[in-house]
C-alpha cells in the first residue's frame, strides 16, 4: 500500500543524503520525494511517498525518526489531507491546435504556458488521479517531455 509520509527536518546540508541513504541501505523504495523550506527557514519539510506493507512502514518511520536531524515524522495516509503535484508537459502540436488543447484540458487546473508549432508547454496541478488523467489525455496527442515536482501534502 502507498503511504504519504511527511517529515520535518533541520534545514542543514547532508540531511537529504542521510534520508535517501536510509532508504537505499534498507532496501525501501521511494515512489516520490519532494523537499522544500517551510515558513521557518531553519526547517524543511519532506513529503515522501513509499509503497510498503505496514510492518515495513513502521520500520521506515522509526528509522527516519532515529536520524538526528529529523524533528518529526507523520504518516498522513490515515488522516484527512490534501495532496498535490505540479507537472510540466511539453506537447507535440503537429496534430492539434492550441484551441483544441485548451478544450481538452478544460476540466483540469491546467494552464498552457506557451504554444507554437514546435510544441506547447502545459502546467498541470492536481492530485495523483487528476494528473494521471491529464497525462493519459495528452499521451494521445503526443508528449515530448514531462517533468514532475513530486507530491506534496498537508493535513486539512
Amino acid at each position, binding site marked *: 500500500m502507498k503511504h504519504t509520509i511527511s517529515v520535518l*527536518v*533541520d534545514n542543514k*546540508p*547532508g540531511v537529504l*543524503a*542521510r534520508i535517501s*541513504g536510509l532508504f537505499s*541501505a534498507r532496501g525501501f523504495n521511494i515512489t516520490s520525494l519532494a523537499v522544500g523550506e517551510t515558513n521557518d527557514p531553519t526547517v524543511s519539510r519532506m513529503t515522501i511517498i513509499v509503497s510498503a506493507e505496514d*510492518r515495513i512502514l*513502521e*520500520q521506515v518511520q*522509526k*528509522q527516519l*525518526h*532515529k536520524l*538526528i*536531524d*529529523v*524533528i518529526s515524522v507523520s504518516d498522513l495516509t490515515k488522516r484527512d489531507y490534501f495532496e498535490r503535484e505540479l507537472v510540466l508537459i511539453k506537447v507535440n502540436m503537429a496534430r492539434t491546435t492550441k484551441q483544441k488543447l485548451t478544450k481538452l484540458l478544460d476540466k483540469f487546473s491546467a494552464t498552457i504556458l506557451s504554444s507554437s508549432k514546435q510544441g506547447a508547454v502545459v502546467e498541470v496541478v492536481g492530485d495523483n488521479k487528476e494528473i494521471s488523467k491529464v497525462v493519459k489525455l495528452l499521451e494521445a496527442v503526443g508528449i515530448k517531455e514531462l517533468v514532475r515536482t513530486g507530491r506534496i501534502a498537508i493535513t486539512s
Partner: protein
Amino acid sequence: MKRTGAQILVDSLLREGVRVIFGYPGGSVLPLQDVLYDTPMDVILVRHEQGASHAADGYARATGKVGVCMATSGPGATNLVTGLATAHMDSIPMVAITGQVKTHLIGNDAFQEADVTGITRPVTKHNYLVKDISELACIVKEAFHIASTGRPGPVVIDVPVDIQMQTIEAEFPEKVCMRSYKPTITGHPGQIKRAAKMISQSKRPIIYAGGGIIIADAHEELLELAVKINAPVTTTLMGLGGFPEDNDLSLGMLGMHGTVYANNATMESDLIIAVGARFDDRVTGKLDSFAPNAKIIHIDIDPTSLSKNVRVHVPIVGDAKNILTALNKVVKKPETKKWHAQINEWKKKYPLTYKTKGKKISPQYVVEQIYKVTKGDAIICTEVGQNQMWAAQYFNYTKPRTYISSGGLGTMGYGLPAAIGAKLGRPDKMVFDIAGDGSIQMNIQELATAVANKINVKIAILNNGYLGMVRQWQELFYKRRYSMTPISGPDFVKLAKAYGAEGMRIKKKEDVKKAIKEAMAIPNTVIMDFIVEEEANVFPMVPAGEAINRMIGGMA
C-alpha cells in the same frame, strides 16, 4: 579570549572530561597535534588508525565513558572506518575527530581529500563537517551528547585544517539544545503494568538480556528482577557479564554457540522478557520457528529494535535501568517450579563440554585456565572466530564490562587494540586478549603501541594454524575442502621480542597454567603462543538457518 579552532577543540574535549585520545598525525591535523603537545591528556600514538578506533572503543567498553580517537584527512580517516562500523554495530559511545582539507578545497579532489561525512554516514550515529569556527564548540558538545545518550554510538567530527587555524572569541555552551534529538528514557507506566501482569501469569518465563544491560548499567536491577520472579536468565554475546554466570539462575549464552539449555529454555518458554537485546539472527536462528509459544516483552531504548525481527506483545521503549527499577516495584513471582525442574534436567543432560583426552592442548582448556588463574578477575578482550566463542563459553563472566568483543560486526583485529584501550581505562585490571593466530596478525603492529606506552596486556594466542571458524564451516558444510583457511604466521615469540614485548610458546597441557601465571607476573606486554589442537570445533552449534534447538555437536 581569542582561541584557535584547534584550541577550542581540545578545550572542549577537556570540558567533556576526556583523559585519553588515541590517534595518528598528518598534514590536516597538525594544528591539533600542536595543541595536544601540552595538554594534560594522554595522547597515545597508535601504529595504524584502525588501532586508534578500536582502542577508543575498548576504552569506552571498559569504562562506560566516551572513547576518543583522531586521524588525518583522506587515508587516515578511511582507516578509521572499520572501527567506526564496529562501534556502531555494538552501540559504543565514541567520538572520532578527523582532519579535512582546507574549506575552499573541499570537493576539488585535493591531496588527501576524502568525503568523510559521506563515507561514514552509514556507520556512525551522526557526523559533522565543521564549516564555520563559530559552530565548533557547539558541535563538540552535541557530538558527546549524541554519542553517549539514548542508544550510544560513534560520532565523527570532520574539521578542515583552516578551521583549526582560524581564531575566534571562544564561547563554550553549557548545555546542548537540540529540538530533533530527545531519546525516551522512562518507560510507559501502562506498558510496565501490562508486563508485570504478563510475568505473574507466566509458567515458563525466561529473561533474555543483551548489551543494553551493560550500557544502561542495569545489571543490579536485572539480578533483582531475576531473583524476584525466580526466572532463568540467558544473555547474548554482548550481554556477557550483565548477569553473574555463577548464579543458579544463569543459563549462560544463547544463540548459535549458546548452551543447549539456554536455547531449549528459550524455545520452550511461554514468556520472553527481552532487555537491551535485539533478536539478532545469530540469536533467533530460523525466525519462523523461534519460541513458538512465547509472548514477548521487549524493553529497549531504540524503538527501531522493537518489532523489527519478531512480533512483540508488550514493547517498552526506554532506559533499561529505569524500566527495570519500575518493574521491580510492581512485579510478582509466578509459579515456576516445574519449569526449573525441566531446566535443571537440561543442564544435567547437556552441559558444555569439550574433548579433554589426547595429547594436544585443547583451546577451551586454555580459556578455562585463564579463568581459574585470574579467579575471574580480569577483562577479557577477544579477536574474532573460534577464540571469541571459546572465550565466551569457558570463562564465567560475573561482572559487566569484563567481556569485550566485536559482536555485531565480528571484526578480526579488534582484540589487541581494544585491550590496549581497556587497560588504559582500567589500569587496575589484568587485561587479556584471547586471540586467534589469524586475527592477531590483522593489527599486530599495535604491539609497538603497547610497549612504547607501557600498557601491559596479555595476549593468549590459541594457535591452531587455521582461520579456525571458517575452517569449521568447511569441515561441516563444505566436505572438509579447506580452501584459503590454513594460515601461517611469524614466530610469535620472536616477534614479541622484536617489538620489545615478552614471548613464550606453550606446547604441553601441563605448562598452560604455569605460563599464564608467569605472564601475569611479567611487568610487560606478553604474547603466550599456545599451540593448540588444530581441528577443535566450537560446539554446540546451530547450523545457519536452523531453529535454535536443533543444535549439533558437543553433546556428550
